[in-house]
């Protein structure tokens, strides 16, 4: 039975550190884990937690998102009531537009938010990857009667972790919470993972106040700046979550899922991860192929060598080709005797015979969509 909780995924995300993969697509539809897009994880987590009504705050590059989500059937969100709704910035020819931030998109859709049937909302982003059951957090949020519950991850020995620099940390002082940036000075701290459970009435009030004031253009900052006005608490999420804000985080997260124990958690723990169906046939391993410690999607033909890599659907790896420590997106062709190491190769790329491409584990070499290297 469904839950009294409306999902809102805010895609007004910063993309400047992952620009290589977000030229033609929003961060939400960056391919991940061999057959998924980033947003699949958050959508599936919500659906598996019983949330059957989800709104997406959409900023730009609509085409990729529409293409991926379609009528929402793959997530069982093609519903008569509730289901998936995309909230676009609504532009009047006579207004002065493309204002900065996501608040203008929220403003364009105030009628939608006001009409929501649920009493609580879960506001998240698409770029935190995990397999999360939101129900325990929701139950505690309701039981405690919180206005806002901030979901957090507890970090120990965090001073060494450069991957956490610049992320949101939450602290309690004199009874009120504040959220700021991690500059690497603290060792033990709580990370805010940009997931907020809120009473719908509180969400609407914050949104209305922010629009009336007309200063703050970002929804997240609007909430953070008002934490002291409300009954706020935190909830510590106890499962692994991979934040993806940069190309390095993306690359590291990808290699993390080559660990079968991590994969078991990510793909199955609280429910499956749903994505757009492609109807790809089996993957054919030719005699002479050699594949180790790799995740391979359907529809591929593997004739060469693959190691520590992730291969998406409908990729062809030719005879004698070698792919190591790399990520190859769908419909790409790696011709015979080509040799790749530490590369991220986007969709519809053609790598010619014998070509050698070497990136670095710290800064992988990204080959952009549709490129042809002959």
């Amino acid at each position, binding site marked *: 039975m469904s839950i009294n909780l409306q999902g809102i995924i805010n895609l007004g995300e910063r993309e400047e550190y992952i620009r290589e993969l977000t030229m033609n697509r929003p961060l939400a539809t960056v391919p991940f*884990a*061999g*057959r998924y897009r980033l947003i699949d994880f958050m959508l599936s987590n919500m659906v598996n937690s019983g949330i059957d009504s989800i709104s997406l705050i959409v900023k730009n590059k609509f085409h990729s998102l529409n293409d991926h989500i379609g009528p929402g*059937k*793959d997530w069982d969100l093609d519903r008569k009531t509730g289901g998936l709704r995309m909230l676009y910035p609504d532009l009047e020819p006579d207004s002065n537009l493309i204002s900065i931030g996501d608040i203008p998109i929220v403003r364009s859709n105030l009628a939608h938010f006001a009409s929501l049937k649920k009493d609580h909302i879960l506001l998240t982003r698409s770029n935190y990857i995990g397999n999360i059951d939101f129900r325990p957090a929701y139950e505690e949020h309701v039981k405690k009667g919180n206005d806002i519950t901030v979901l957090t991850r507890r970090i120990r020995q965090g001073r060494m972790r450069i991957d956490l620099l610049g992320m949101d940390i939450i602290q309690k002082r004199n009874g009120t919470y504040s959220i700021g940036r991690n500059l690497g000075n603290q060792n033990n701290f709580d990370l805010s993972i940009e997931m907020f459970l809120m009473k719908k009435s509180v969400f609407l009030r914050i949104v209305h106040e922010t629009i009336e004031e007309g200063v703050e253009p970002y929804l997240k900052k609007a909430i953070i700046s008002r934490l002291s006005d409300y009954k706020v608490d935190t909830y510590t999420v106890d499962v692994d979550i991979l934040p993806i804000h940069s190309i390095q985080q993306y690359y590291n997260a990808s290699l993390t899922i*080559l660990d*079968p124990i991590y*994969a078991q958690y*990510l*793909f199955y723990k609280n429910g*499956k*991860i*749903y*994505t757009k*169906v492609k*109807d790809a*046939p*089996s*993957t*054919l*391993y*030719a*005699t*002479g*192929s*050699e*594949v*180790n*410690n*790799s*995740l*391979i*999607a*359907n*529809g591929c*033909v593997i004739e060469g060598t693959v190691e520590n890599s*992730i*291969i*998406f659907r409908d990729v062809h790896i030719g005879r004698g080709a070698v792919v190591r420590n790399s990520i190859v997106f769908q419909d790409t062709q790696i011709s015979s005797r080509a040799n790749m190491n530490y590369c991220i190769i986007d969709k519809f790329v053609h790598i010619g015979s014998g070509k050698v491409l070497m990136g670095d584990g710290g800064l992988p070499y990204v080959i952009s969509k549709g490129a042809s290297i002959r």
Partner: protein
Amino acid sequence: MIHSKVVAMILAGGQGSRLKNLTRKTAKPAVHFGGKYRIIDFTLSNCANSGIHSVGILTQYQPLALNTHIGTGVPWDLDRKGGGVEILPPYMSTEGGRWYAGTANAIFENIDYIDLHQPEYVLILSGDHIYKMDYRKMVAFHQKTKADVTVSVIEVPWEEASRFGILNTKDDDVIYEFDEKPANPKNNLASMGIYVFNWKLLRRYLREDHKNKESTHDFGSDIIPEILRQGHRMMAYRFSGYWRDVGTVDSYWEAHMDLLDPNNELRLYDDEWKIFTKNLDVPPHYISDAGHVENSLLNEGCEVYGTVKNSILSTSSVVEEGAVVTDSILLPYARVGKGAVLKKTIVLSHHKVQEDEVLGDGETITLAGAYDMGIL
């Protein structure tokens, strides 16, 4: 809603008992095939790719796996308003309940369903065969030749013709006689059990056949011969390409081995004629450091820590460390324990082969597992 010119009726009620444990708990059309499909996916995908949007599926034997698989028809884009795919089991009327007594009787009992769509033609199909066919071309041939009935035929080797239902034709492919398993075949055109009928004509013959106490109510034995006897124009539509009735454990295994030939005629990698199936929402497959795979097909959710040769691993099947799987088929969610050795073995879905178990002599085919529920 537009009325459909063509309604397809898929016969999917058969048990297929020669498939032994594969069909103890599920109907033959729901049997897993080719690593990620079920047998009926081929016929259903042919309908979808041929632009046929009204499809009735006649079920009778153990339909739960089939029902769950087909659901609302989403994978084939057959979740249609006022049409799409409809499951048609036997039912009770004021005269009491009747099981389907034969292929023709199954259609007879669903005349009302077909009439709902007011079709010009009815396409009778079997849910048991592995092939790709554009039914539009067959219907166009039927129209062009002004036939009353068109039967799809395939050339078989003369020496095997006596195992099939053979259609004897004149030079212009007009059928004048149907010969069921003839001792001395006059022709080598075998019926594929695929028919296009003008619906008005078929309805008439179904009603007459229903009244005939001597009839077995079968298309091949009763309806086709009777229509020929009455002098209607019946055409043979020649099909060439891959076509298999995987009715026995041997032919089932062989058809799988055909798929390992990269140039096999079924051409599953053809993007223009995809075979659709229910998606199981599992991740890509994983091959570990110790895993080794050669000349094999793998699917989503598989995990390989051992060795796999000349085999087909269906969705979410697992080969543990040290296990060696050769010339074998693992059905979905099958698991081969550590150190087990399999040759020419079919492991039923959800069955677990124990650690160090040795199965198969490499000669005859071994079936591992008592029965296959067919439900994933």
